[in-house]
């Protein structure tokens, strides 16, 4: 490694990008590649929500102990000492909502623009001031240190949507009925896939971060290398960064996020590293998951590699589905080449890691200890169902005599086939046209299952502007009914008990 740094200093270093490496290894073999190449540069540029910024504003006169602070109306955490703040990338602004957030403040600072600081203080003998308002630029802060808890995912699941409704997610706009696939990650150009066993990458590794030089300070949060989902925690000086490689972004109906440009140089120290840095897009496999299922464990639609994703079209159940990325391959290439240029100019030296990244991590679900209601806990189980043969008068009588405005219609084997509401009956009577349930019932019925979280069922009622959901078991038999009345009663009870 010191030899490679020597060659960086004297300008004789040989650098290629991770995209050029596979062909070189094909041509020269791993032994030849070790001889001919000193450093392979990697790069990625994509939305990395888990990013943020520590700012030290300097002390005012009289001094203030900041407890709450806003930068351009985006709240920054003020509970760190007197004038240290932490600004999170995904924090939305209080006046412009999702269209402007912490990430945009960071881009404004990097671009040299003014930022309005507003702070409230806790008055003490040593910090008598209670309020501070001032206009600052990046230069005015003592320190502006980016610290990103989770960046540069090894790979990321691609997203699709099986439902009938367009979804707006942090994976972008997902069209209904698998209308598109959205993916993220730089494939074979990504840092970690080029050193998946952390032969070089470790704590202290010097990296390219948003145009400046930064360090890997440890494994990122949710680091799960044993499953191929390693992450990095990184740090860098915002004052060295450029808006070419740092951008505030907004995901519709989700919120702000930060596009981070991150590159890791990997020295070709041995044949193993030469082989690993020759990784190709088609060797990096991920899953397409269905974001239409709003649960933590989303079902996998199919496995896919990055070469297929980059091709622009993938096959789902025999249909050609268009793919598009949220991360930018174009800027990822710029990251890798800018990093290569600064190494060739002798400005970027490689650093020995203090310790390797852990090969085992943890990403468990949260332990939920408080009341968590499911549909089955709240629904009415005494539900009256009808067969489609009955006439309108009988149906009307059942609604009047029962507790619901809704009658689930079932087949001979008790399976749900439709729903009739008091409104349907009124409409039928008013128009004097139909007399049979089968003609007036809604056949496309939204349903709930008893083990579904109540909150999701409530969203379903809201989205489809309906007031009741029949609850069915796995054989599609009606076992209960959930109505908006249940929800309002529940809310009333909770309010009283507080």
């Amino acid at each position, binding site marked *: 490694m010191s030899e490679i740094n020597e060659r960086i200093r004297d300008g004789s270093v040989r650098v290629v990008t991770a995209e050029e490496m596979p062909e070189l290894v094909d041509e020269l073999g791993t032994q030849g590649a070790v001889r001919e190449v000193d450093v392979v540069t990697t790069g990625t540029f994509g939305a990395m929500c888990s990013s943020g910024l520590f700012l030290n504003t300097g002390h005012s006169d009289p001094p203030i102990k900041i407890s709450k602070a806003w930068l351009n109306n985006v709240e920054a955490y003020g509970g760190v000492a007197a004038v240290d703040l932490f600004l999170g990338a995904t924090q939305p602004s209080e006046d412009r909502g999702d269209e402007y957030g912490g990430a945009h403040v960071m881009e404004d600072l990097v671009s040299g623009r003014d930022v309005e600081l507003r702070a409230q203080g806790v008055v003490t003998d040593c910090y008598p001031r209670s309020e501070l308002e001032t206009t600052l630029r990046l230069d005015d802060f003592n320190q502006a240190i980016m610290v990103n808890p989770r960046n540069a995912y090894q790979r990321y699941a691609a997203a699709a949507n099986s439902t009938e409704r367009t979804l*707006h997610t942090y994976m*972008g*706009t997902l069209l209904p009925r698998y209308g*598109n*696939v959205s993916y993220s990650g730089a494939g074979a150009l990504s840092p970690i896939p080029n050193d998946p066993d952390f032969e070089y990458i470790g704590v202290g590794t010097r990296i390219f971060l948003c145009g400046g030089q930064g360090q890997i300070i440890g494994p990122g949060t949710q680091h799960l290398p044993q499953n191929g989902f390693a992450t990095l925690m990184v740090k860098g000086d915002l004052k060295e960064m450029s808006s070419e490689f740092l*951008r505030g972004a907004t995901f519709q109906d989700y919120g702000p*996020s930060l596009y981070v440009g991150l590159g890791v140089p990997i020295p070709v120290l041995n044949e193993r590293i030469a082989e690993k840095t020759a990784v190709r897009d088609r060797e990096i496999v991920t899953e397409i998951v269905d974001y239409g299922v709003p649960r933590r464990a989303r079902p996998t639609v199919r496995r896919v590699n990055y070469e297929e994703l980059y091709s622009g079209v993938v096959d789902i159940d025999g249909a050609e589905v268009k793919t598009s990325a949220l991360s930018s*391959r174009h800027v990822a290439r710029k990251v890798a080449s800018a990093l290569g240029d600064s190494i060739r100019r002798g400005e970027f030296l490689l650093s020995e890691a203090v310790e390797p990244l852990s090969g085992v991590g943890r990403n468990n679900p949260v332990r939920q200890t408080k009341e968590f209601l499911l549909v089955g806990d709240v629904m009415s189980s005494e539900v009256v169902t009808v067969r489609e043969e009955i006439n309108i008068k009988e149906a009307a009588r059942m609604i009047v005599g029962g507790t619901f405005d809704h009658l689930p219609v079932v087949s001979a084997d008790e399976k749900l086939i439709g729903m009739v509401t008091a409104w349907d009956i009124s409409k039928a009577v008013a128009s004097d046209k139909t007399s049979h349930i089968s003609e007036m019932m809604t056949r496309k019925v939204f349903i709930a299952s008893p083990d579904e979280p109540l909150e999701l069922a409530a969203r379903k009622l809201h989205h489809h502007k309906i007031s009741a959901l029949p609850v069915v078991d796995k054989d599609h038999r009606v076992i209960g009914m959930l109505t908006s009345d249940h929800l309002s009663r529940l809310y009333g009870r909770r309010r009283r008990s507080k």
Partner: protein
Amino acid sequence: MKLMLHVAPGIVRKPIVSSVILETKALINIERAKVDAVSGEIVVDVDLDKCVEVKRAFEERGVRVVLLENPIIKDDDECVHCGACISICPTGTFRFEGSEVVADAGRCVQCASCITACPQRALRLVLK
């Protein structure tokens, strides 16, 4: 060539498109239509050689017609070439040229799907 038809109150219930087709014998493709109780906004595609004739025929029926020559603008300072606009566009306006996103504005029917899908807010409709 794409034409944006602004159909005013009073004539929105009339079979305007059909009557223009019968008169001009042009092949008119309706690419997008948003019609409510009082007015409508319809984007049609017509062959270049019939364009002037069709435009005049619509105008004679009281429709305001705008040629969609440059319906959408991409701000290249803001665009990071991620490609989020590509898969959600119903008419294939955007594509990769190398690793850069380019727009073929002639295909755009101003449905506005891409406006909110762009994380960088780099796209803007030219409204007339």
